[in-house]
C-alpha cells in the first residue's frame, strides 16, 4: 500500500459521515455553561479556603483590615424569551428537520411571564414555564388545549408539535434565532422573533392643537428617510413606520410623538416635505384619563372555575397620594390564552409622589377564567411596559398552575 492508496482508503472510510447531533448554538451555550461552572468552582474554593483559614472577613468585608476582593462572575446575559416567536424548523426524534403544516396558521409560540401559548397551525397548545436559568428551560408541562385535543395527529404534517416541545430542556440563541434543545442538546426547534405590530407614537395634544409645517430645504436628497429628517428632529429618536416609508416619527423620551415627518423619494434620494407637531404650550387633552395598575387583592384562592375576583387598583402617576375614582374594568378576552383587564382614573396634571392609595374593585368576568392568565392591560401601554409595575411578569397577575 502506498500513500495514494492510503488516501483512497481514508476517503472510502469517510464517505458516509453521520449527521451531527449538535447545533452551532449548542457550542456557545455549552461553552458558557463550562465557564460558569469554572467560576462557581472558583467561588466555592474561595469560600472553603476562607473557612479552613478561619477567616470571616469574606463574609464581613467591613471588618477586614483590607477590602475584600471583588469577585466578578462573568455570567452572560440571560436569553430574553418573552414575546412572540415564529417556528421555522422542527425536528423529529431522529433529528430530521421538517416544518409544521402551516396551511391554517403559521406555527407560533408566545412566552408571556411564565405562560406559554402557541399554535401549531392545526391545534393550540398551552402551558407554564419557569423563567430560564442560564441555558435551562423546561417545557415538560406543555399540553394541547383541551378544545383542540380531538384533532387527530394525522391532521397535521410533521412531528407532533406539543410532544416535541415537552422534551425541551435547554435553549440557546444564534443570530437572533432561538434554538430549543433536548437534554442531549439535540435541536428540537428553531424560532424567529415575530415582528411586533407597529403602533404609531401618539401626540401628547389634541388634534386641534397640532400644527403642520412645510419644509423647503436645499438639496441634494439623502440616502435614507432618517438622514433626510435628522436635521429637523431636534435630536429626538427617529422611528420608521414599516408599512409606510413616507412617514418618520421623532419621539420624545416618554414615547410620545414630537414631530411626524412626511418624506418623499425623488430621483436623487429622500427629501423631507414637512412635519406636524403640537403647538407651543398646547396642553394634553383633559378628557384623556390616566392609566391605573392593579394587583389581586390578598386572601383569594382563584381557580380555573373562578368567574370574579377582587383587585387593588392604584393610579400609576404622581397625584399626591390619591388614586381617585376608578373606571369600570375594560376586559378583553382576546386570544393567546390570556384575559386583559385594564383600569383608568381621571386625568391629573400631577402632584407629589408619596405613593397613591389602593382602591378595591370587584372584577366580574361573566365566564370562568379557565386556563388563561390574568393580565394588566395597562402593561401593554408603552409608557408603563418597562416600569416595575409590569416587569418582570409583563403584567401577568395570575396564571393557572
Amino acid at each position, binding site marked *: 500500500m502506498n500513500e495514494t492508496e492510503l488516501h483512497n482508503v481514508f476517503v472510502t472510510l469517510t464517505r458516509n*459521515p453521520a449527521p451531527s447531533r449538535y447545533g452551532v448554538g449548542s457550542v456557545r451555550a455549552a461553552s458558557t455553561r463550562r465557564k460558569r461552572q469554572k467560576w462557581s468552582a472558583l467561588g466555592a474554593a474561595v469560600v472553603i479556603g476562607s473557612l479552613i483559614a478561619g477567616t470571616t472577613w469574606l463574609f464581613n468585608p467591613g471588618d477586614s483590615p483590607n477590602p475584600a476582593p471583588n469577585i466578578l462572575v462573568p455570567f452572560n446575559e440571560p436569553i430574553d424569551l418573552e414575546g412572540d416567536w415564529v417556528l421555522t424548523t422542527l425536528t423529529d426524534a431522529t433529528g430530521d428537520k421538517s416544518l409544521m403544516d402551516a396551511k391554517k396558521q403559521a406555527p407560533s409560540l408566545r412566552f408571556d411571564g411564565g405562560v406559554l401559548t402557541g399554535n401549531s397551525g392545526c391545534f393550540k397548545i398551552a402551558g407554564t414555564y419557569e423563567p430560564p436559568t442560564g441555558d435551562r428551560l423546561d417545557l415538560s408541562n406543555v399540553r394541547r388545549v383541551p378544545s383542540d385535543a380531538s384533532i387527530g395527529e394525522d391532521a397535521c404534517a410533521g412531528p407532533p408539535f406539543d410532544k416535541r416541545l415537552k422534551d425541551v430542556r435547554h435553549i440557546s440563541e444564534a*443570530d437572533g434565532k432561538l434554538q430549543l434543545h433536548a437534554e442531549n442538546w439535540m435541536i428540537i426547534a428553531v424560532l424567529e422573533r415575530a415582528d411586533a405590530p407597529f403602533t404609531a407614537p401618539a401626540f401628547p395634544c389634541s388634534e386641534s392643537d397640532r400644527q403642520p409645517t412645510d419644509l423647503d430645504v436645499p438639496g441634494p436628497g439623502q440616502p435614507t428617510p432618517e438622514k433626510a429628517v435628522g436635521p429637523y428632529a431636534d435630536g429626538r429618536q427617529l422611528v420608521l413606520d414599516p408599512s409606510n416609508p413616507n412617514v418618520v416619527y421623532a419621539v420624545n423620551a416618554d414615547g410620545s410623538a414630537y414631530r411626524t415627518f412626511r418624506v418623499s423619494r425623488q430621483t436623487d434620494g429622500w427629501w423631507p416635505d414637512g412635519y406636524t407637531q403640537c403647538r407651543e404650550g398646547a396642553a394634553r387633552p383633559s378628557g384623556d384619563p390616566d392609566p391605573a395598575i392593579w394587583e389581586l387583592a390578598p386572601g383569594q384562592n382563584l381557580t380555573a372555575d373562578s368567574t370574579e375576583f377582587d383587585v387593588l387598583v392604584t393610579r400609576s402617576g404622581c397625584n399626591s397620594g390619591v388614586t381617585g375614582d376608578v373606571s369600570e374594568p375594560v376586559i378583553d378576552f382576546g386570544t393567546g390564552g390570556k384575559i386583559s383587564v385594564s383600569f383608568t382614573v381621571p386625568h391629573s396634571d400631577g402632584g407629589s409622589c408619596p405613593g397613591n392609595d389602593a382602591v378595591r374593585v370587584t372584577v366580574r368576568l361573566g365566564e370562568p377564567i379557565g386556563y388563561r392568565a390574568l393580565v394588566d392591560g395597562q402593561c401593554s401601554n408603552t409608557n408603563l411596559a418597562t416600569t416595575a409595575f409590569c416587569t418582570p411578569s409583563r403584567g401577568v397577575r395570575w396564571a393557572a398552575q
Partner: protein
Amino acid sequence: MGSSRDSDFDEWVLHNRVRLQKTAFLMCGDWHLADDLVQDALIKSFPKWQRIANAGDPAPFMRKTLIRLCVDHGRRPSRREVTSATIRETVPASDPDFDHLLHALQEVPTGQRAVLILRYFDGLSVEETAAATRTSVGNVKSQSSRGMDVLRSILVTTPESDKA
C-alpha cells in the same frame, strides 16, 4: 464584537464540522464518538475564537485540539477497550471491506494513526503534521513510516477469506 465573533465562528463551523468529524472518525472509528469529540474541540475553541481567527486559518488549531482530544480519549481508563466473554450485539456490517479497513486502521498505534491521518487524509506537510501533533519533524517521518508498515502488515496477514 461578540456577535461578529459568533457569526464568524458559526460560519466556520458550518463549513468545517464535517471535515473535522471525518478526521475524528478515522482516529476513533465511531461516528457518534467523533461527533462528541468535535463538539468538545469546538467548545474548547469558542472562548478564544477571536484570537484563533486573528492568527489566520483556524483549521490547524482546531485539528491540533481535535487530535489531542482523540488521543486523550483513548488514554482514559474508562474508555479503553476491554475483553469480554460475551459477544456484544453490533450493527450488522453492510460492507465487509469497510469494516476490515476500519478495523485495520484502529489497530495502528494512536500516535502513528494520527500522523497517517493528518498527512494522507488532511493533506498536511511533514512540518504541519509535526506542529499539529507537537512532535519533531523527524518523529513525524518515523511515525509515518512505522504506521504504514503496521497497516500493511495487518492488511497482508489478514486472509481475504476472513473478510467475509
